[in-house]
């Protein structure tokens, strides 16, 4: 039974990952990401990590992918990518070689050299059963790791403030580069071209 659930979920996860990799439309890629994330959530349930399975569905499928879709729709970047052209020569073969290297290294290190999980479990955080998983996780988080939890609160605050600062609209047109700074650069005619063009595009977007 467990093996059947695992195989179904593994197929779901990997086909979703291939979908993200190969989808020409970013909206389709986001939906394939949801499929992959749901598969991982069911695997968490199989491992009796019930709290994390719920959080996985809520945070990933419910928040992160929705955020992706919002950005895709708001910016109108749901145009279809042309995957047939390869802008940098040799990029894809190199990526496949690097991927094979990562896969070979991790599988060799995990399964051949080490041969499985080693080390003793910590005494103060034994794994409970699925029923009291959330309770035990909360106890460990707010006793042993309470400082780290407060740091994550700070991290989330900084992230929200940073996002607001990044996407706020500037009043008026974009400022051109200072004249002396442009003149001191050796490649000044090339560097002013994209900046001026970018400024016009920005104004058009604001209007």
């Amino acid at each position, binding site marked *: 039974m467990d093996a059947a659930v695992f195989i179904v979920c593994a197929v779901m996860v990997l086909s979703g990952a291939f979908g993200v990799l190969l989808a020409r439309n*970013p909206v389709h890629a986001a939906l394939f990401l949801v499929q992959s994330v749901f598969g*991982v959530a069911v695997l968490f349930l199989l491992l009796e*990590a019930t709290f994390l399975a719920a959080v996985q569905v809520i945070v*990933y499928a419910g928040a992160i992918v929705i955020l992706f879709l919002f950005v895709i729709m708001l*910016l109108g970047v749901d145009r279809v990518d042309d995957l047939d052209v390869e802008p940098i020569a040799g990029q894809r073969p190199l990526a496949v070689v690097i991927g094979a290297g990562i896969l070979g290294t991790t599988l060799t290190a995990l399964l051949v050299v080490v041969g499985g999980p080693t080390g003793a479990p910590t005494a103060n955080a034994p794994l409970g059963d699925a029923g009291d998983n959330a309770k035990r996780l909360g106890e460990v988080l707010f006793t042993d790791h309470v400082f780290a939890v407060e740091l994550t609160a700070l*991290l989330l605050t900084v992230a929200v403030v940073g996002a607001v600062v990044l996407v706020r609209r500037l009043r008026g047109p974009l400022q051109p580069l200072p004249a002396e700074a442009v003149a001191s650069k050796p490649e000044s005619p090339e560097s002013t071209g994209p900046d001026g063009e*970018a400024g016009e595009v920005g104004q058009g977007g604001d209007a």
Partner: protein
Amino acid sequence: MEVTVAWYLTLGAVLFTLGAVGLLVRRNPLVMFMCVELMLNAVNLTFVSLGDALGDLSGQVSVFFVLVVAAAEIVVGLGIVVAIMRRRAGATADDLSVLRG
């Protein structure tokens, strides 16, 4: 047939590899972020399966923090993408080479 921890570790390694290859191949910054999410999911799966094998809750605690960092990373990353797309519509990762000094 018993599902051992090696199954989960293999699935995690394959998922991480797919995410890494996607990050290297795709040029749409949004799809590249999705590939980063795939890699984080692979690591989460590895954490939980190793914690299950060792009978230890620390793996799930690590996954909790990874989730928080992933959420913060996506918020800031999508903010950067919005700021760039507003200036250059349809920019790909290659167009950002104009940022070099």
